[in-house]
């Protein structure tokens, strides 16, 4: 059995073999794995782990108010730094509270390690106090999970978790540590390097034959499009993608997760595609004859009805995960490998295809179907609010969104130009993600301007952690687009359920007062002329979070829209009311 070997991030502070408790061994492993931050919440079964953390000088622990926040924050931290994020919780309820965040990480391929306390080995399976079958619960939502059964295997299990979480297609790994193992004092041996069975980390270098086949296909293309996703961000392939696209002049559309992989300010950018993507991105992908799909998974929010998606196209599909290739759409040229390596190789071999008519066609679509809305009167349009934030931050913020209408508007109107500056819950679509992920991002990038664009519904799912953000003095900007409803659900009820508005209107608190109560700065904005001064004021706050609650038009709908399970033919380009 061949094995792959990876050296550790840091050499240990201890000798290779040392007598200590399981808890201390965990801390030693975290140190060796290069961990500097843990988002977590203690509890009974995690007491020995937390006791060891008390002495850990090189690792800071961010005490959250709810474990879901710890998992989302670990994802936010991972996204902006590229390092594996770490969250920690106790057994039972602590672990079950992590579940949403772990699932989000799984769906969006975020490398995090979740460490959970567990009841003692002799009590497992007896319905002990605060016991949950965490291994059973998390098996389908983790890339890998493991329970430490004997103290001696703790270093291997923990260090392997970091290797698995961060390599290949990243994902969440959970390590469950029973209480007695954390307490037991024994002679621990720390491996100098970690090994995994070969084949578990897919080869980064793509097959030269496949690259040549892809280059040949692109060379002859008349209507090529690059369809780029989160894999481009993960593999740090944005420079390679940008170089290839600019040299060959192939237009690029990015998915929700791929935003930042190619500058949306570039004339070759088509913006986002899919259900709420730009009309021109959707027209282009569906008229394309060759599609270079890189780091994407042909999600239903992108393709709509699969049988009607890009019917005239041949696909080149680059992905590090062989299981993604051919899953939803057969690939004419499958390329298993790292996006960065593959794009670099492709760039060296692909001459610019001759497709001037295609560029003219795209320019025409762009001119005819721009993203637009109409800001009139005192009521603030949500798109206008986002454009103001975009303008006043010079488009340079790390933007974190929650889930719903505001997320789609943010994707449309806050143009991304740099990788790792756009954080959102794409696959799982987990409301409550935005604020915690922004918190994790700010901890990971203390000097960056981190702006969360949130809805009033999602913010209220996790806002209790304003306490944490104030405690750490995080200068987060939280822009809450308050339409007094669960806007996306309301939109669907309006369009597809005959305006039967079933349980979508929210009675909201005074968000500014709430923020002030936590010790943050709070500003309420109701009229359009209050918006710019409020955003400017929020940008001046440097020592604590600032919540700007913006009352927006509650009836605004998100367009363009391809209704669920339909195709570009059924796209609603814009609101009828926008036209004269």
């Amino acid at each position, binding site marked *: *059995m061949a094995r792959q070997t990876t050296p550790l991030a840091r050499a240990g502070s201890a000798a290779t073999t040392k007598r200590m408790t399981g808890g201390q061994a965990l801390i030693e492993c975290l140190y060796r794995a290069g961990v500097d931050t843990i988002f977590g919440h203690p509890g009974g079964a995690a007491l020995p782990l937390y006791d060891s953390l008390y002495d850990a000088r090189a690792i800071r622990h961010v005490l959250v108010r709810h474990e879901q926040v710890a998992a989302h924050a670990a994802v936010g931290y991972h996204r902006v730094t590229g390092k594996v994020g770490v969250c920690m919780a106790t057994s039972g309820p602590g672990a079950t509270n992590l579940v949403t965040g772990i699932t989000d990480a799984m769906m969006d391929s975020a490398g995090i390690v979740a460490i959970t306390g567990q009841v003692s080995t002799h009590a497992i399976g007896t319905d002990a106090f605060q016991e949950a079958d965490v*291994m059973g619960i998390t*098996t389908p939502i983790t*890339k890998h999970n493991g*329970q430490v059964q004997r103290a001696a295997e703790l270093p291997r299990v923990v260090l392997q978790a970091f290797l698995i979480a961060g390599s290949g297609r990243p994902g969440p790994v959970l390590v469950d540590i029973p209480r007695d193992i954390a307490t037991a004092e024994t002679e621990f041996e720390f491996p100098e390097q970690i090994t*995994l069975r070969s084949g*578990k980390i897919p080869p980064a270098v793509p097959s030269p034959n496949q690259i040549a086949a892809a280059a040949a296909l692109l060379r002859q293309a008349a209507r090529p499009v690059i369809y780029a996703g989160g894999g481009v961000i993960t593999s740090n392939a944005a420079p390679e993608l940008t170089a290839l696209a600019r040299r060959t002049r192939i237009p690029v559309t990015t998915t929700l997760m791929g935003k930042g992989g190619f500058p949306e300010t570039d004339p070759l950018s088509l913006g986002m595609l899919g259900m709420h993507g730009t009309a021109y991105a959707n027209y282009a992908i569906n008229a394309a004859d060759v599609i270079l799909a890189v780091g994407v998974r042909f999600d239903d929010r992108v393709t709509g009805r699969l049988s009607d998606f890009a019917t005239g196209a041949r696909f080149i599909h680059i992905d590090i995960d062989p299981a993604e290739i051919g899953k939803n759409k057969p690939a004419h040229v499958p390329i298993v490998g790292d996006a960065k390596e593959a794009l670099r190789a492709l760039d060296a071999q692909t001459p610019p295809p001759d497709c001037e008519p295609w560029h003219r066609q795209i320019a025409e679509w762009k001119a005819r179907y721009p993203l637009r809305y109409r800001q009139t009167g005192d009521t603030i349009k949500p798109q206008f609010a986002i454009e103001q934030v975009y303008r006043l931050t010079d488009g340079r913020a790390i933007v974190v969104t929650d889930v719903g209408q505001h997320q789609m508007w943010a994707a449309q109107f806050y143009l991304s130009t740099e990788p790792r500056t756009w954080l959102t819950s794409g696959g799982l679509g987990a409301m409550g993600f935005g604020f915690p992920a922004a918190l994790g991002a700010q901890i990971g990038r203390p000097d960056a301007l981190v702006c969360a664009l949130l809805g009033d519904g999602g913010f209220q799912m996790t806002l209790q952690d304003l306490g944490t953000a104030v405690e750490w003095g995080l200068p987060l900007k939280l822009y809450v687009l308050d339409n007094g409803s669960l806007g996306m659900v309301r939109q669907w009820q309006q369009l597809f359920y005959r305006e039967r508005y079933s349980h979508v209107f929210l009675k909201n608190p005074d968000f500014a007062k709430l923020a002030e109560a936590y010790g943050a700065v709070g500003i309420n904005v109701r009229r359009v002329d209050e918006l710019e001064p409020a955003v400017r004021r929020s940008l001046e706050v440097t020592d604590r979070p600032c919540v700007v609650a913006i009352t927006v038009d509650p009836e605004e709908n998100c367009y363009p829209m391809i209704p669920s399970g339909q195709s570009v033919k059924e796209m609603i380009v814009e609101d009828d009311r926008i036209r004269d």
Partner: protein
Amino acid sequence: MTGSAIELSRDAPSAARAPMKHTISVLVENTPGILMKVAGLFRRRAYNIHSLAVGVTEQPSVSRMIIVVEGAPEILEQIIKQLNKLIEVVKVNDVTGFNTVDRELALIKLNATPATRMEIMEISNVFRASVVDLTEKTMTLEVTGRSDKIDAIMSLLHKYGIREMVRTGQVTLVRGTQPT
């Protein structure tokens, strides 16, 4: 090797997309929870598992699962790719259509009176089954063979009244020097 049998079924125009039985061999590290991980991948795509037999191999740290499933080949291909990603999985092989030895064992407890005993013994002889328990009212047979052979003896024994039965599920090895 993995998946070659799937390609074959795709090439056959009539069999394409039609559900067909597949025999999958999965070598796994002997760790708690791996059975659930493997079975979970089939469950999630609502793929029907006919039988699943697990046992330790010549290496004590490694177990082999033989899984007989039925369903659409493209979904099975996806499941095999997912199986390969599990850290504890050593090797996955779809051995459908390979030259294999397939065996299953069944224990069948049926009603048997002194009047019917000889008849049952005759059936049992034809199938090379052996009588492993005998009482005034019952008889228990052990039969080994391909799954269809067990189906055949079952259909003959039915009329005597089967009180209980258990099957191990199919186990399979590829013939000759080629590994399974």
